[in-house]
């Protein structure tokens, strides 16, 4: 029998069947796609960012693509304050830090040592009211695509 019981459910099954996924809060469209991946334009944003720091961005165009995302203020202490004037000006121009319904999200990953990392160099800006989204590349060359998040907390995580 192929049916999984609750105890037998695996993370793979949970993710593939949306069992454990947070609710969809917006359907978003990147007019130009993501950087270097112009074909990925349409996504569902899942999360409850008022309660949990991590959400999901699942591709509608390519079912093999999904991102874990976190608001910048969670992924990097200081949030917008850590960005230089040019980057802050650019983000504010898109509504980040100006409107409550505009989010700046960092994609999350896990490095080879099992550390949780965030892409601070290329944040995603999502307008929840219109569904319009874009990925920016910031100008600060000291920002990393693999900024360690909660470094001391992810030590030892599988």
């Amino acid at each position: 029998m192929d049916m999984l019981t609750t105890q037998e459910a695996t993370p793979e099954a949970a993710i593939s069947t949306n069992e454990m996924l947070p609710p969809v809060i917006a359907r978003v469209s990147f007019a130009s796609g993501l950087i270097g991946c112009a074909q990925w334009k349409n996504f569902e944003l899942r999360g409850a960012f008022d309660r949990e720091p991590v959400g999901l961005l699942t591709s509608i165009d390519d079912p093999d693509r999904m991102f874990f995302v976190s608001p910048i203020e969670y992924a990097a202490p200081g949030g917008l304050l850590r960005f230089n004037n040019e980057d802050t000006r650019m983000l504010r121009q898109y509504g980040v830090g100006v409107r409550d319904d505009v989010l700046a999200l960092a994609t999350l990953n896990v490095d080879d040592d099992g550390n949780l990392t965030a892409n601070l160099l290329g944040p995603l800006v999502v307008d929840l009211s219109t569904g319009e989204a874009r990925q920016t590349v910031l100008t600060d060359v000291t920002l990393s695509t693999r900024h360690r998040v909660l470094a001391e907390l992810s030590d030892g995580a599988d």
Partner: protein
Amino acid sequence: MLVLARKTDQAILLGDGIRIVILGVSGDRVRIGIEAPREVPILRQELRDAVEEANLDASDTKSAVHRWNTLQAALGKHRDSDSDASERAA
């Protein structure tokens, strides 16, 4: 690729709205000034490439379970830490 030779303070025009000026040359570094409409993105190629690579790495569902488990472990420890701090404060 079109190849042009320029001297300091000389410029190149791209269409009607973009002007690129050579500000100076020092060793193997060239300082360039760019005037362009605000809506035209101007990116350092290596940063754009790094973001592209990060997008590909971070979006692969084949590694999603590993990332999911790491996230849950990290967040679980974070919640435990917060809880302990709250109890100590109380």
